[in-house]
């Protein structure tokens, strides 16, 4: 052992202690479960109807016909609760759980009080007391209506959220007005391309309908790409960006359109007390029925202009057909996914 190695070991034990290995393979689908929930539209106003769809998968692939139980939860989150949802939402029955139906895809509605319960509007005042504390936004300035989902096979509970189209808290009237003008509803992202690169350097576009063929034990690099969104507003690109209006670019903004990639958006920065323009980060969760992903989650931060996420998938040691799902999530709660099949041969 070199001096450097000994020194490094000493430092490691002094500073780091010993970390256990308690990781699990989050990518491998061993049993039926929900791995994503998509809302359409991805951002909805109080009282608005939304279509909720779960990606329910099993070891054999996507399970299309599943009796999934949906409920909207209208319970506010106490400050003392550090989880994402009020614990009453994790129950099976509660007055604050409003059923949204059964199935892999249901039509639900956003609570009419959503912006009071989960957003920037003051909650209903108690008799004799002033209005209560508003809810803080997330880092994108967003607020969310929670939903509770019960999987059909094991009654496992899954949480889902739909981004709310609410106002803003803490801003001046001028800022609030500007935000209303510049804010564009989020559009759920889409993965449109999946590339596979083999160890020999050859690559291929993986077609949704034509399974890719690999050898047992082979490792391939996968890239999942999403549409390119403009980094700055250009009138005529068919996308109405935050710096464009009907007045400045009627062609783009006559019909509000977004981008299914990493969109630019505006938010109110509570620290700087200013309106700032941000770009969505994009995350991809990799799932498979066989083999294993070297990187189970990957993505790009808002500062990264790249439009794809990368992982490496190792084929199992026996011939089979693996189903791969790539679920993309943008920073504002939008969700999309795509599915590919890989035939593993001897």
């Amino acid at each position, binding site marked *: 052992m070199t001096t450097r190695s000994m020194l490094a070991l000493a430092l490691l034990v002094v500073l780091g*202690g*010993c970390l256990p290995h308690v990781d699990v393979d*989050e990518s491998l689908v061993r049993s039926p479960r929900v791995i994503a*929930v998509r809302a359409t539209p991805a951002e909805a106003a109080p009282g608005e109807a939304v279509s909720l769809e779960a990606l329910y998968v099993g070891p054999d692939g996507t399970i299309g016909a599943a009796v999934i139980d949906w409920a909207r939860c209208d319970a506010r989150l106490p400050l*003392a609760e550090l*989880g994402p949802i009020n614990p009453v939402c994790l129950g099976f029955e509660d007055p604050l759980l409003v059923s949204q139906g059964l199935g892999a895809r249901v039509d639900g509605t956003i609570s009419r009080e959503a912006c009071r319960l989960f957003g920037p509007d003051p909650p209903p005042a108690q008799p004799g007391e002033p209005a209560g504390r508003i809810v803080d936004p997330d880092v994108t300035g967003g607020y969310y209506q929670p939903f509770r989902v019960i999987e059909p096979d094991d009654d496992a509970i899954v949480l889902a959220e739909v981004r709310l189209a609410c106002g803003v808290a803490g801003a001046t009237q001028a800022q609030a007005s500007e935000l209303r003008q510049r804010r564009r509803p989020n559009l759920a992202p889409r993965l449109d391309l999946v590339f596979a690169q083999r160890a020999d350097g050859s690559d291929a576009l993986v077609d949704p309908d034509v399974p890719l063929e690999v050898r047992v034990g082979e490792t391939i690099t996968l890239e999942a790409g999403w549409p390119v969104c403009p980094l700055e507003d250009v009138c005529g690109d068919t996308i109405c960006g935050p710096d464009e209006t009907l007045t400045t670019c009627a062609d783009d903004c006559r019909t509000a359109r977004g981008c299914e990639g990493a969109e630019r958006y505006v938010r109110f920065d509570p620290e700087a007390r200013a309106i700032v323009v941000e770009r969505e*980060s994009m995350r991809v969760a990799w799932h498979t029925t066989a083999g294993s992903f070297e990187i189970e*989650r990957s*993505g790009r*931060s808002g500062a990264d202009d790249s439009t794809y996420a990368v992982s490496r998938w190792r084929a199992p040691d026996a011939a089979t057909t693996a189903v791969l799902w790539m679920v993309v999530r943008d920073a504002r709660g939008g969700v999309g996914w795509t599915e590919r099949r890989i035939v593993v041969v001897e």
Partner: protein
Amino acid sequence: MRVHPERASRALTLASSVAFASSLVAAPIHAQETPPTETHAPSGPQLTRAPTLVTFVPAEYPASERESGRAASVGVHVTIGVDGTVTEAVVAESAGEAFDAAALGAVRQFVFTPAEIDGVPSAIRILYRYQFTLETEVVVQPAALRGQVRARRGRTPLAGMHVTVTLADGSVREARTDEAGRFAFEDVGEGELSVAIEGENVTRVLTTETLAAGESVDVTYDVTVADPDEEEEEGDDLEIVVQAPPLRRAVVSTEVRAEEARLVPGTSGDVVRVVESLPGVARASAGTGNLIVWGAAPDETRIYVDGVPIPRLMHEGGLRSVIQPDTVRSIELVPGGYGASYGRGLGGLVSVRTETPEGDGVHGALALDLLDASGIVRGAVNDDVRAAVSARVSLIDLYAAQALGADAVAYLPIPRYRDGQARFRIALGAGESLELVGMLGSDQFQRGVPNADPALAVEERRYLDFQRVYARYTRESGDGSVISIVPYVGFDQRETATSNGEVRTSVGGETILAGLRASYRTHVTDWLSIDAGLDAEVSATTLVRRGSIGFPAREGDVRVFGQSPPDQIAADRWSAVQIGIAPYVEGDLSLADGAVHVVPGVRVDPYARSVSRRIPLEGDAPALGAFRQDFRVEPRLSLRWEPMPELALRGAVGLYHQPPRAEDLSASFGTPDLPLSQALHAVLGATVRPTETLTLELTGFFTAGDDLAMRSASASPLRAQALVASGNGRSYGAQALVRQELFEGLQGWIAYTLSRSERQDRDESAWRLSDYDQTHVLTAVLAYRIPGAELDVSLRFRYATGFPRTSVWGAVYDAASDRYTPRFGAHNGSRVPEFVQLDARIGRRFEVGDVRLDVSLEVLNVWNQANPEEIVYAPDYSARGYVLGLPILPVLGIRGEI
């Protein structure tokens, strides 16, 4: 066997002079009976070195009283000058003219080592009781002078004592006592013999014996044996009454001197770290450096250096203290029930007393080990003026990148710290001194865990810098009163920030601190001492916080290690000015001839607070500030009863308050109008001292706090009320301490604390374990310094129950964030497994020319016990494991001094 009155009187004059302590009427304060573990709470000037009698002159038994043969006791007020000579002797308690004159004649010839108040040679007045009593049997036999020399305490024979007899003809005979302490001079002839006894650790004593022709006398001399290492507390024959005694405000405390602490394994020579091993202190999780005393939260225990508050005791990671060890004189921990001079804290009190090192000329020392390097330069211009400058800087960060690589450094929590002091002390006159001190500490800590998923990348950053400048003026008047004034100013800068993906949370700010601690202590009468003072503290804090309200975590949060904070964010920038000006007064009533001490005290603590923002900022609306004032009266009472010198029974009760932290006064993240929290402390204990160096203590305690700031449990809390003063807390238990102070090279202690710390989030909720509960904490420290070999070996064994944790019984998949959310069992219903560790240390001192080298090797976790420090879970909470603490780790340190 018969008694010869004249000889008996002379022999007993000697014996009674050296054996008075157990037989005399107790005076208000018995310095030599003060258990080292039972010292007063930190405050103003204190007797730090008792005068030791170095020249004893026996009193002649008055001839006029020989026929009566009666016992007599003369109390003499002896004023000892700064040079140790007796400047004045006045009879305080008369036993008749003859006895008074004899006693005064002898006492005026005494010579002492100078007393020291706060380390300064000072004039002092003591009550010396010269007793002419008949306690020892003298057997007269013909033909010789025979006898035995015994230790006064325990009446054990003393071997090797040098006994010199000067015969009537001027010839000198010498003898050494045998194993039985006996000596014999045969055929010494008639007449008056001068007898001198001296030996190791025994003050030279003189007496005379008159023998008739053909007569033999058998005498017994009981002498006091002083422990050379304990001379300031044990090495005198005196019953000392400091005229302005420091009041015993704390009935339970543990004080460790720096030289004792240095030997404790695990401290790596950093003496302040010995606090971790004291009774009542829970074992902090590795790397935190938190100080948890009697189950109180770390920020409820106040930390003082010379009476000046500092924000932390340990550097980041808990590897080092923030105070350079060469300037530390002692560390005292008072877990509760302390007196009226301290407040603003619900928990315990840690007081570090520092000093400007003594010594002639200019000296320096440099220490080096794996973690850091430190050094000190000290010098003295003359006897009155001395100064010191010290510094310490971490080294890990300098070579970690080269040793581990830049990527690894990014992962690891590598502490970067430094601290330093500059000190200047001037003696203004007899008993009067001024010390100017500047100190600083700085910590930086940063690590990051990159991830291909931007939402899973984690970064963590913390820093804390603090500076303090203070002056310490001390004046001891000739009448024994003591004035102490410590004005101080300080500045703190700190920030804690984390990034969990794109959720960045941070809280940081600056605090300007100013304060004054002043006390006047005087002895009003023989039975009453008064300590009155002022404890003023003003702080102005400006804070900036952004991110999740759930970070940083608070006591009572239901969460697990590694769990991401909520992703909802807010931001606030606010300032808070808090003023506390607390006058206090305490009296020490000495009753039953000093066997009972009643120390009532009261502290009047008016608080005023101004917060810049009452409600969260809305648009461009102007900020509306909040002002609050509270007035609290804090009564304190302690009792001490010493039915016999070896036994003390103690009790204390007091009320304590703590203002909210400035961090909790945010309109967005906290509550600007939070009230004071308060706590009641009750302590009951007993101390037994079977020997002069062995102490056994048993202390029961109960603390009850209320109005503790907790997160609002309401689903719709009002604005600016994220925290509510709804929490209640209680801690109760007992601690036992068996402590052997330095005795023939051996020292150590066994401390065991059995406690339970509970919290109630709201009045209607059930009591639960506090996050800081540790049922059992056992610490055993044993150090042995091999006499003459400059070698010391020591061991430390620790056992501690693990901290409570909330168990996880499942998880819910959050499809929105692609993360799992744990489902919790009973709040703090489980624990981290217990901690067991043995540490060892061996140190050797070398003299190389003018350089003194101290080389030490510490081996932490000798048997390589796998100690779980924290529970970690798999991302889906389907599996769990433990973060383990340090494996066996040898640490070599070297320190050179010139």
